């Protein structure tokens, strides 16, 4: 297996030409350029070939061809991922699934929809809205990100605490195996015979198979949703207020925190009316029936006031609710305006640790001489520090990466994990060893072998390459920074 590839690019291209129409195969470097990275552009690589199949049969034929030739395959949806999980393999095929974008079936009585992997997250909710339904998980990139990518990363969003992650909102997935077989995991019911392979495949970052169809569960659109915005003069007070909401038996639909720098950036960008002098701002959304939301809004207002809120505002209309959320949802681009580049981290921490972790991040910010704004899915403990740097300066890039690595290690040290929703990809491979023991990593490797004995599916991502697995074809160690 360590021998040079047994195929040439020309042989591969001619095999794929027999499967795909000419316009579905991208062979020249310049046309391949848009596929060189996902949303984490620090890591770039060009593949041998880009294949853009239009049917599941073509996907299957490509997989069979790559299996025969032992060619690495990296699946890609919309390319909005943030861990370089969809970065191409230099000796492999980049399998773009964006042309598989049909909503195949909506069953309102069963509250399900069957869709192809390239369908965007938001378009599912839009298509089922006439039936009074929607799809729960809503990553910030939902306008662009694809459901296939959501399955690969087990994506979350701001509504996870109440409505769960992708894995909680699927009924079945159709997958093409590494050997090119077509298999359905899950079923039309809530249980399936044998092992829950669908749960295992969800979040597996394209290492176990290529998803070609997804049946999602749908939820009834809530009658009403309102948001409470509150400013606090310390992160600790805001964190305690979050704990008090949960302790009162209320599960908000969304519960978000922003620190002072994020608040200022978001306010400059969106003019949502956030208090610029606050050290932390909370957004707490309640949804349900009118009676329930009225009852919970009153309770949350009381809790925030007693918790020392310096500002308090409740949305009186859907337009005002949208405005209050606009700031939070545009926090990433808002921070992007403050700096040539930013690096988004994704650790999850026990909520009680938030003030400690933010103090540590502030100390690291001084140490690395880089600013960092923090947005926090406070309901579920998922923290997104946004480290600001200049990508044109190699030395700053290195500092930003070290800063990020320390934040992830800190997340693990306080009882959390290195990634809540963005995935490991290529980016967090080094930190896997701070979260998992060698025995645990070996078990992951054995699972990989069970599904992909030749190790051709997205090799070099998700789980670190251990010595035990000599034949694992490693990626080049150096990546271009850009």
């Amino acid at each position: 297996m360590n021998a040079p590839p047994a195929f040439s690019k020309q042989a591969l291209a001619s095999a794929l030409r027999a499967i795909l129409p000419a316009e579905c195969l991208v062979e020249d470097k310049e046309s391949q350029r848009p596929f060189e990275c996902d949303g984490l552009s620090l890591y770039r690589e060009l593949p041998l070939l880009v294949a853009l199949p239009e049917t599941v049969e073509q996907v299957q034929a490509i997989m069979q061809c790559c299996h025969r030739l032992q060619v690495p395959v990296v699946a890609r949806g919309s390319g909005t991922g943030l861990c370089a999980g969809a970065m191409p393999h230099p000796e492999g095929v980049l399998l773009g699934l964006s042309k598989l974008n049909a909503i195949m079936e909506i069953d309102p009585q069963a509250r399900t929809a069957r869709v192809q992997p390239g369908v965007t997250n938001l378009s599912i909710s839009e298509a089922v809205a006439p039936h009074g339904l929607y799809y729960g998980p809503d990553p910030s990139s939902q306008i662009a990100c694809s459901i296939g990518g959501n399955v690969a990363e087990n994506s979350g969003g701001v509504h996870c605490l109440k409505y769960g992650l992708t894995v909680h909102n699927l009924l079945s997935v159709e997958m093409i195996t590494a050997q090119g077989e077509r298999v359905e995991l899950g079923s039309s019911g809530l249980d399936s015979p044998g092992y829950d392979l669908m749960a295992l495949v969800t979040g597996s970052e394209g290492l176990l198979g290529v998803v070609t169809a997804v049946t999602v569960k749908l939820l009834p659109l809530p009658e009403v949703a309102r948001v409470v915005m509150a400013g606090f003069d310390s992160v600790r007070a805001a964190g305690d207020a979050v704990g008090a909401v949960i302790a009162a038996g209320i599960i908000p639909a969304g519960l978000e925190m922003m620190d002072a720098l994020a608040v200022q950036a978001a306010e400059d960008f969106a003019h949502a009316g956030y208090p610029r002098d606050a050290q932390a701002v909370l957004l707490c959304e309640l949804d349900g029936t009118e009676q329930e939301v009225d009852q919970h809004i009153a309770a949350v207002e009381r809790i925030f006031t007693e918790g020392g809120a310096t500002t308090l505002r409740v949305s009186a209309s859907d337009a005002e609710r949208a405005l209050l959320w606009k700031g939070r949802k545009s926090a990433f681009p808002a921070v992007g305006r403050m700096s040539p580049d930013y690096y988004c981290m994704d650790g999850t921490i026990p909520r009680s640790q938030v003030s400690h972790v933010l103090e540590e991040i502030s100390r690291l910010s001084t140490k690395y001489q880089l600013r960092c704004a923090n947005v926090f899915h406070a309901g579920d403990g998922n923290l997104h520090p946004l480290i600001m740097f200049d990508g044109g300066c190699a030395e700053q890039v290195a500092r930003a990466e070290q800063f990020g690595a320390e934040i992830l290690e800190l997340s693990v040290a306080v009882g959390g994990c290195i990634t809540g929703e963005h995935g490991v990809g290529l980016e967090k491979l080094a930190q896997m060893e701070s979260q998992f023991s060698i025995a645990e990593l070996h078990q992951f490797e054995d699972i990989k072998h069970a599904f992909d004995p030749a190790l051709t599916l997205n090799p070099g991502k998700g789980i670190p390459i251990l010595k035990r697995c000599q034949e694992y074809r490693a990626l080049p160690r150096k990546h271009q920074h850009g």
Partner: protein
Amino acid sequence: MADLLAHLQAHVREAAANASPVAIRAGNTKSHLVGRYCHARPLDVGDHRGVIDYQPDELVISARAGTPLPELESVLAEHNQVLPFEPPRYGGRATLGGTLACNLSGPARPWLGSVRDAVLGVQLINGEAQVLNVGGKVMKNVAGYDVSRLQAGALGTLGVITQIHLKVLPRAQATQTLAYEMTASQALETMCSRAREPRPLTGACWVNNRLFLRLAGAASAVRHTASQWGGEQLDDEIWSQLREMSHPFFAGKAPLWRLSTAPNAPHCEGVEQCIDWGGAQRWLRGEARSLDLPRGAHLSLFAGGDRDTEVRGALDPVQQRLQQRLKKSFDPAGIFNPGRLYSWM
């Protein structure tokens, strides 16, 4: 309250060295349910018990696998929290580990999720006697493969579960049961229509020509919805009868089958039935193998009948190969609960 991890690890090491299979058990409430009989030497996990950590305002509890469910539930009740998946306690001896291994969840499952949905992380002894900690104690964790959820329904064939971290929820402020006389087909139609409404529905079952709906949540929402939906207002007894299988429907020796299906699949006539999970789980008594089943549905023999043959449907060859290889990746010597899930596993 004891930590027997080292002891259990030593047992597994010895079993692996001697290729001597073990039947994992704790409360021993489910050895005649869910899966096939496993005739191997028992490995008792029941004394490895106790709540290890509980953070009410994080909504997370951690306990050893042998912890009986009532013990866990009484700790949660002190903070007005519950196990949202309503697992059967089977007389109070059912344990957390067994509940996860069998993936047993009660009537709220379509709305509040299953134990598979609630599990955040597990500690597991694999077939090489290594102690693995996978997942975590936080709500969101996508590092590594989801080995925790994989244990749900694996019937202990991938390893000895020793510790579990779970998401819990606040107890609903108010509940109300509503009942209506109607046929099974009318009930299925009503269940699916009601489930499309944005109301605090957390239970929908049909038995003896009666449809039961449960509302649970904020008192104001429950009251308002109950007044709109009408029906006879009852106490909540039917739901614990379903959860514990103490309802007269479950009495007697006739084989009990479980049909997992789309909730709106048509009613299959010709066999005594109880419908739960808003139509997605249907309990059948007697001989069900010959029934004409809905497309995509799965039938399994939950209790009674011949438990030395297969109790669930065959897998397609690709799935079977993947499952066998996965089993081997955890348990190369095949020592954990042989034959419990399938005769070939």
